[in-house]
């Protein structure tokens, strides 16, 4: 099947496009899921009144539809074919017809508009609810969630619910129409009505055979859709890496396979979708035949009015429409239930880290931090931090140092309560972080994350971010401290320069500076710098440190860096290794101790040892002069 470019090795390539996490199993469930409906009701309730009106409009609309053949029948039988028919009766029939179509017009407009609007609004509410909820669900959940798939819930699933909503009211109309037609036919002529309806069981049987197969085919088509689209999205996001690694041909072949599967599934599902058409048409023909033969004979025998026969013919042509659309509705409903389950699944993800009811939201904090016997990990049985204890007093700056993967970033995540500790506790001002509101933590801790994420938007908006009170001056001030002011003002639009996606029109170091400035603008008591200057040269870094020294006064700082020159000025250095604290002390003390820190430090500079002191002294003054 795979049409990968030829390669010498016989084994299959280690290559996939699109996510490897298994696709959402579309729940192949009922068309009616009580739980989903119940949940859904909460969102529909605000629009109750509108829905009642819409329902009424649907009923009126259906009634008008039903009345039209009756009027025609009346016109034929009472006004046209009787002896000495006079024009008045015809005029009356026409007048009735006119009234009915005006009502039909009004009802149809009202129905379309109300149903459409309600569906739209419920869906917007639901999407917002999901978005709101996602702001609060546990980080551990977000780590495991692919953004593409979440987006497909926020967009795709929500849309299929909208379709369902819009349809569900017309479904009511269809049901009424169906029963109305049956009732009227039976009332007009019971025997002929029964005979005509005798074709219905055939339809039901055929449908019963058809439905399960068709549903499978439809489901497969939708699945391959999301697989193909997922692969496309990945191709778009990763395009630079793909080109850089020369993976175009392999990826294209793999994508081609997915697209082909998608095509095959869709062709199959189209076949199934259309298979019912000739059946319905044949049955319509049969029903009309019955009316023509039996009804015609009755008319000949004068046992039936010709108008009734005409009305029957009209009803038959409308009769299968609601049946047809009801079966379509069935799969729409089924899909909607699956979507609904996925949506409510998101809404149900526990907010593992919810604010306690009595959570504190202090206006000011002092900034004392303590980790008490903290144990933590991301996966069960694989602890990343093991029995960590340390304290940072207000106004102090502490550095976290250690080999990669030793757990430095994890410590800062716990301070901000992105994750819950397994054991032990983290306190700020002696109060457990779990007893603060998340908003309070956000306000009092400013972070420069290791990965400098920027939003699409202007530089100004990015640095100011959520600190609404920050003026342009504040923003510029922060940019000056981190040494970003000069490059920003050199840009054609200065602070109003628009950043493209993830700030890719800036160099990584520049992005890091902006992310740094963003944290400074937030003006918080605790400042966490996770490799904030890793992509910045030492000279610029030094400038930042000079400005920062002032800013850090009275604030608590946690600084992470691999370049030890960055941290040697810290009040205290904590050395981590594999989740344990192995050493603590000032730079000098640690160097003197001769442990891991001393080794790392020596490694950093070992190669420079041979440079005479006076050369360096001169270098400094030379730099100062330029």
């Amino acid at each position, binding site marked *: 099947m795979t049409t990968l470019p030829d390669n010498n090795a016989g084994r299959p390539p280690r290559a996939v496009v699109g996510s490897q996490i298994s696709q959402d199993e579309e729940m192949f469930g009922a068309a009616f899921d009580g739980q989903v409906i119940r949940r859904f009701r909460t969102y529909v309730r605000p629009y109750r009144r509108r829905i009642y009106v819409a329902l009424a409009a649907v009923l009126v609309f259906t009634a008008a539809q039903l009345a039209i053949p009756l009027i025609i029948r009346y016109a034929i039988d009472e006004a046209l074919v009787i002896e000495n028919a006079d024009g008045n009766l015809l005029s009356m029939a026409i007048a009735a017809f006119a009234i009915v179509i005006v009502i039909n017009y009004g009802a149809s*407009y009202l129905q379309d508009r109300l149903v459409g609007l309600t569906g739209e609004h419920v869906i917007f509410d639901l999407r917002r609810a999901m978005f709101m909820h996602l702001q609060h669900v546990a980080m551990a959940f977000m780590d495991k969630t692919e953004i593409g798939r979440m987006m497909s819930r926020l967009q795709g699933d929500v849309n299929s619910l909208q379709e369902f909503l819009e349809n569900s009211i017309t479904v009511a109309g269809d049901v009424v129409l169906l029963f109305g037609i049956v009732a009227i036919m039976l009332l007009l002529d019971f025997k002929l009505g029964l005979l005509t309806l005798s074709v219905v069981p055939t339809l039901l049987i055929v449908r019963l055979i058809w439905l399960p197969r068709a549903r499978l085919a439809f489901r497969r088509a939708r699945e391959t859709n999301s697989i193909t689209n997922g692969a496309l999205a990945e191709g778009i996001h990763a395009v630079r890496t793909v080109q850089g690694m020369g993976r175009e041909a392999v990826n294209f072949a793999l994508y081609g396979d997915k697209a082909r599967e998608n095509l095959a599934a869709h062709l199959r599902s189209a076949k199934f979708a*259309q298979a019912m058409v000739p059946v319905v048409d044949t049955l319509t023909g049969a029903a009309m035949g019955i009316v023509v033969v039996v009804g*015609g004979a009755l008319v000949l025998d004068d046992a039936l009015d010709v108008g009734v026969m*005409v009305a029957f013919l009209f009803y038959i042509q409308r009769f299968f429409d609601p049946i047809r659309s009801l079966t379509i509705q069935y799969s729409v409903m089924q899909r909607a239930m699956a979507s609904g389950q996925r949506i409510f699944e998101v809404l149900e993800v526990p907010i593992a880290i919810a604010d306690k009811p009595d959570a504190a939201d202090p206006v000011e904090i002092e900034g004392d931090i303590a980790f008490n016997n903290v144990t933590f990990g991301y996966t069960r049985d694989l602890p990343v931090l093991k029995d960590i204890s340390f304290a940072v007093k207000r106004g102090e700056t502490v550095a976290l140092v250690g080999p990669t993967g030793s757990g430095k970033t994890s410590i800062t995540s716990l301070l901000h309560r992105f994750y819950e500790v397994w054991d032990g506790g983290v306190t700020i001002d002696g109060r457990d972080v779990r007893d603060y509101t998340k908003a309070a933590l956000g306000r009092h*801790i400013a972070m420069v994350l290791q990965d400098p994420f920027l939003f699409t938007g202007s530089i100004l908006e990015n640095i100011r971010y959520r600190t609404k009170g920050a003026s342009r001056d504040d923003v510029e001030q922060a940019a000056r401290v981190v040494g970003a002011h000069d490059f920003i003002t050199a840009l054609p639009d200065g602070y109003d320069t628009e950043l493209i996606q993830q700030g890719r029109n800036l*160099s990584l170091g520049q992005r890091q500076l902006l992310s740094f400035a963003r944290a400074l603008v937030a003006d918080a008591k605790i400042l966490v710098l996770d490799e904030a200057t890793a992509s910045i040269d030492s000279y610029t870094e030094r400038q930042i440190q000079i400005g920062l020294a002032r800013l850090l006064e009275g604030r608590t700082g946690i600084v992470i860096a691999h370049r030890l020159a960055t941290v040697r000025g810290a009040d205290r250095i904590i050395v981590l290794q594999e989740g344990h604290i192995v050493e603590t002390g000032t730079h000098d003390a640690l160097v003197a101790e001769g442990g891991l820190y001393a080794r790392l430090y020596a490694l950093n500079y070992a*190669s420079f040892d041979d440079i005479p002191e006076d050369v360096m002294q001169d270098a400094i003054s030379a730099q100062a002069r330029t």
Partner: protein
Amino acid sequence: MATGNPKTAGKPPGDGITLRQQAYIGMSQTTDHRNGTDAAVLWRIIGLALRYKFRFAVAVGATIAASAFQLMIPRFLGDAVDNAMGMLSGTSIAPALAREALLDAALLLLGVSILRGAFTLLHNYGGEAIGHLIAYDLRLAFYAKLQELSFSFHDGIHSGELITRGMLDLEGVRMFVNTGVLRLVLLTCLIGAGGYLLLSTDLLLGLLSFSFVPFVAWRSSVARLRLRALWLALQQRMGTLGQIMDENLSGIRVVRAFGAERYEVGKYDVAADDARLIADERIKTRASSTSVMTFAYFIAMGLVLWVGGLRVLDGTMTVGTLTVFLTFITILQTPVRQLGLLVNSLARASTCGGRLFDLLDLEPGIRDQPGAKPLSVSKGALSFEEVSFAYSGVGGPPVLHDVSFTVARGRTVGIVGPPGSGKSTIANLLPRYYDPSSGRITIDGQDIRHATLASLRQAVRVVQQDAFLFTASLENNIAYGDPWADDGMIQDAASTAQIDGFVGGLPEGYGTLVGERGVSLSGGQKQRIAIARAAMLRSSVLIFDDSTAAIDAETEQRIREALKTPMQNCATIIISHRLGALRHADEIIFLEGGRIVERGDHDSLVAAKGRYAALFNLQSRNEDDLATPDIQGAAE
């Protein structure tokens, strides 16, 4: 809107710069696409459908046949009614004959219905199938085009926008064959042939039956314009909303770190309200246009009933013929209701098609030149010759000025410099992610622009500053550049990058899934995967773009040791802020503002007491007092 954008029309897309401008002109302002008129777009879609000539012919034939059989039904019904009333063509006939005629009519009706059903199946299936075939073709073309378009194109367009095009716009085009073209054929046949039949039966009544058609046509063309505009507006606003949601989720750590949840919801609300306004408008427009159209239809029906009734009263017409007219109108009801869909489909297809074709028509700014030859690497010497470059094209702010240097095989050049000085840009020019605006880059004397892209990119490996990891297993990530690599190669690469120990400690080892963009890895682990990825591949030029910034000195040292052997056969460029990594480079270039301001080996640079020496001093001296007056002076 009718004609192409005058600024770009007729000008062949040139390098990345014009391309990017075109990308902006053609795409961001979605209201104005370069693909000529709507009609041109629609014709182009039809052209795509015509690739499947046979299917298309069958589908159109079936559509015509289906409408023909459908048109027979009213006539049979009318005859049956007349038969039943025993007054076929005005002459009373014997009941026995009439009964026979009724039976014939019934059988005919059944037969015609079956045929109609069969052809409708062919028509619908044909339409759907062609739609899906087109969609398949376009999907592949789109994917291939994306992979081909250069970095400057991708810089200029948001990924969400591209995804919209590849999914929603493609859907719009796909639907057009069935809901647009074939439905139009069906409607034309029904109205044309039916009109002929009816008008030749009774001119006035025929005219009345069709009286609603011009009205509906006019209304729908008005609605079409309005809906098209609304479609565009909605698409754009939903795009913005999608972007806000997407960035919120991608930047979730920033959002949480700043406690910015409420701020984000505020941002969302502004965009959502904006979108909802348009969505509401669209629904209102749709509701009013469909209901008015249906109303017009029923008026026509009423008129037919009235005038036909009067005729029957006059005795100039039979009830059967009246039934023919009424049934015919009934048959028209569904297609006329669908006219709304048709209108929608046309509007959607021309918008979506325009946006899609704009993209498919772009020429990649960077591609093989005619007559490009595979790069032949013998000595593997690399040289930059007075290279200048600007991301926004000639005249834009220059990022590199006259940069020249050479690296021989087995040699290493180190690059240092402040943020934004152009270091990564140098790395980007080598594999031709962008082309220099002047000067040239050669490998063994061959201008890289004359080599094929594939061979060039195979010879040049860049370890990017911020590597992209895939949501896939660790081994797939490491073997990304060579999917056929065996386990041994992967392990070697991992041990070169010093990541093997970490992987070995994981319960699932190399099969461990990496979270989206590497969320489940620490910063240094991500960088080491990226290094392993490059170490897998044999290449002649290796570039490390600050790729050990998140790795501790000890691990870095070990990586450097492990890379020594492969680097002997490469020209290597190391970009780093940690001078220890550059200590042994053969030449170190100090870049500032895109210019080389200092160059030489470590010792000579330190001796020169310039910028490099100052940097070096900062990193190597164990100063007790960080805020020496000298440094402060330098900072100002």
